[in-house]
């Protein structure tokens, strides 16, 4: 079999080498991002508002009353669905660096390193794919590395859209490092041919859609978590308290309102893609097994994830569920996604058991 030819083995070796390099560079990017937080400051404005809980500089940029010309209860209601709780909130922070130029340099360094690691990481995945002449997602090692790449890609994409989201670097790089660490240690298998069940162009379509969805859902969940933290801090500041031990972190984040909006946008953006991934999976199942839906554990959990995200979207549109409660639903939805990946592949056997975990 040609998978054992010398050239292919060299490529596979190169892929591993690139992966380790990428991990090393991610680690440096992570440390730089941590240093940015450490050397940054809370910023003048936020400091002022934190010491002056009445919030003399606070402004409320949401309209405070529903606007005329609308008929509640009809389909044509166009009430602005603002998501923040209306209170005097401290203004959004300036990001991880605050006003410190030194920290800003560290933050920029972190971004450059992330970009470099991303390139190495992508190179590793491409060479792995070339070494076996197939899409490089046939087992859990390959899924994990691709999923981490999608997460970093989504982060860089949001950065490139000129959003000041460098405050995402620490949590994102941390989970990327954990994912890759798990991948190269526990989940690692040498590159090999696919089992016949995966011989299909649907592998490209379905799995890449799922991986990209996963990456973006991941960022969405991280932003949601930060939203919850910032939101609690804002509530504490509004009540005149200092906001807890992590106050310096929350103070440098954007306002709860914009965090909430960003996480919602990310989730909304990929929900259709995830829907498509599930549908493409059903089409593939029809081609492989003669039924498009069979309640296999993987399918069941894809369904649960889908329903959970739909519930999250509904919650956002339902009065009384906005804000923190909707955010919790978003986190639950993401945890079902993660469980579908690790939990179902490792603990539950089904038709989709192609995790390729080394059996002991």
């Amino acid at each position, binding site marked *: *079999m040609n998978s054992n030819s010398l050239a292919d083995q060299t490529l596979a070796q190169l892929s591993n080498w690139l992966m380790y390099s990428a991990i090393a560079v991610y680690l440096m990017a992570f440390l730089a991002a941590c240093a940015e937080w450490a050397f940054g400051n809370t910023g003048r404005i936020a400091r002022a508002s934190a010491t002056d809980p009445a919030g003399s500089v606070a402004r409320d940029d*949401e*309209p405070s*009353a529903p*606007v*005329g*010309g609308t008929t509640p209860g*009809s*389909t*044509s209601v*166009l*009430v*602005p*669905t*603002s998501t923040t709780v209306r209170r005097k909130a401290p203004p959004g922070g300036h990001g991880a660096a605050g006003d410190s130029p030194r920290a800003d340099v560290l933050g920029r360094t972190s971004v450059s390193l992330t970009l470099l690691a991303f390139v190495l990481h992508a190179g590793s995945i491409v060479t792995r794919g070339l070494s076996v002449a197939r899409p490089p997602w046939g087992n859990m090692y390959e899924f994990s590395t691709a999923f981490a790449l999608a997460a970093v890609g989504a982060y860089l994409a949001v950065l490139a859209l000129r959003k000041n989201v460098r405050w995402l670097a620490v949590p994102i790089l941390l989970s990327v490092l954990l994912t890759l660490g798990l991948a190269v240690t526990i989940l690692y*298998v*040498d590159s*090999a*041919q*696919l*089992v*016949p*069940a995966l*011989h*299909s162009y649907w592998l490209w379509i379905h799995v890449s859609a799922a991986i990209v969805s996963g990456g973006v859902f991941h960022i969405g969940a991280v932003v949601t978590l930060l939203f919850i933290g910032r939101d609690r801090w804002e509530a504490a500041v509004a009540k005149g308290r200092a906001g807890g031990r992590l106050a310096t972190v929350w103070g440098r984040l954007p306002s709860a309102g914009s965090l909430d909006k960003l996480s919602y946008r990310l989730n*909304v953006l990929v929900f*259709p893609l995830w*829907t498509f991934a599930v*549908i493409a999976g*059903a*089409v*593939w199942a*029809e*081609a*492989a*097994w*003669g*039924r*498009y839906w*069979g*309640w*296999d*554990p993987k399918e*069941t*959990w894809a*369904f*649960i994830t889908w*329903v*959970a995200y*739909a*519930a999250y979207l*509904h*919650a956002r*549109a*339902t009065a009384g*569920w906005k804000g923190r409660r909707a955010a919790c639903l978003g986190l639950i939805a993401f945890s079902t996604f993660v469980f579908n990946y690790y939990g*179902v592949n490792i603990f539950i*056997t*089904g038709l989709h058991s192609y995790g390729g975990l*080394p059996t002991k």
Partner: protein
Amino acid sequence: MRTALVLLLLLALAAVPGSLVPQQERQPAQAADFRRNNPDLSNVLDTLGVFNVFATPWFAAVYLLLFVSLAGCIVPRCGQYLRALRAHPPTAPRVLSRLPEHTYWIAPAADADDALRAAVDVLRGRRFRVAAGPGGDGWVAAEKGYLREAGNLVFHLALFGMLVALAIGNLFGTTGQKLILQGDGFTNTSTQYDDFTPGTLATGDDLEPFSFRLKSFHAAYQPTGPQRGTASAFEARISYTAAEGATPRDARVRVNEPLEVNGTKVFLVSHGYAPVVTVRDGKGDVAWKGPVAFLPQDNNLRSVGVVKAPDAVDAKGRPDQLGFTGLFLPTVQLDANGWVSTFPAPDDPVLVLTAYHGDLGMNSGIPQNVYQLDTERATQFRNADGTPYAKALRPGDRMTLPDGAGSLSFDGIRQWAGFQVARDPSNGTALWSSVAMGAGLCASLFVRRRRVWVRVRPHTGTDTSSGIEIEVAGLERGSSDRLGEEVGEIAAELRVRTLAACHDTSNSRTQERP
């Protein structure tokens, strides 16, 4: 909406046990294991139907309630939507400055009616639906993005399409399994299946009249490396006739590549080996001859099976049924765990059998599982020392039973392939529903529904010049940064138009005066 939200969460929750506990229909063997290991728990689970979650009344109740509440929401919303399509955009609010996006300016020499006409033009040009109020204290109202609501309705309606598809599939679809030995054939009638499951309302009488023959089966495995033994290709070569009397055609069926005959699909789902054996009885006559399918137990195709010779007689000619049970190991290895196979290809095949004789229940009239031997009233052959008589055979070997009871020779190996034949008339409905769902979802999430109002009033400022005040304001469901831009662009366009209009009038005035 709140009900829908709770029901959605409940549906997700209801699906969870179905993924954690092996389901009877899908994984009967695992379900049996689970029952054996957790007898007490299993009783509780059984009463709750947890071994068959997706067919339980409570699961059905949740999703039916969800769909009732969906219908209760969708039907009135469709009506409202149609009315909204015919209605005018609503009157401008009195105080535009309270809207989230708002801008105004004063146009000194402009005419109010001209400005309103220009506003109508600008908004129409941007494909808004426009309604204008009466002049003087006039206003223009515009709305855009009706597709959002339409998309949302289409999406939720498509969910009904999915439900209908699922129902059609369950009621009228048929599936069946058939194990076919290399060289053997199959005709698509319900009696020919090993296992046939018609939908609730399907009779199984009107199956697509095709037939096929398995010419050969090919498998390729990774010969080395950590994934040694993992299959890399399976292929069944068949010859089929699409209808009675049609000319036979050749086809290849692979995993992921079923054969389709007029909407019925033939899937390759399993494969294994069938040792070819000849059983001779006590009189030396051939009591049974042919290939016997053994069922794989693991990835290296360690397989179990039985050979039955119901018509065998003993040396004196009295009926004495013979039965053999044991293992087939494509690449044999004997280790601490007993007989194992180390590779799925038949590199070093061995058949390990022990034998029974007597009443194997094969004439009792009760249908028997062909893969099991009923040894309750039979006697196992034993060696002189009393241990069970067993033998490992390589192809060409023969085992001679003690006391001249007969023999079995292992003549060779054939392969078999397992096929699933399925017809699901709901595939089309499901596919089109999902396409509608995707399109509806995108429209519902990405189309922005927004309203823009323009108000024009005589300017009552302190300065002496007469003029008008023009206000532009916008409102959008959900907040978006793009609305601000859009209102800004509209205002800019309108400004240019009103300015141009002023210029015209002032020009004509200067021409008139001299």
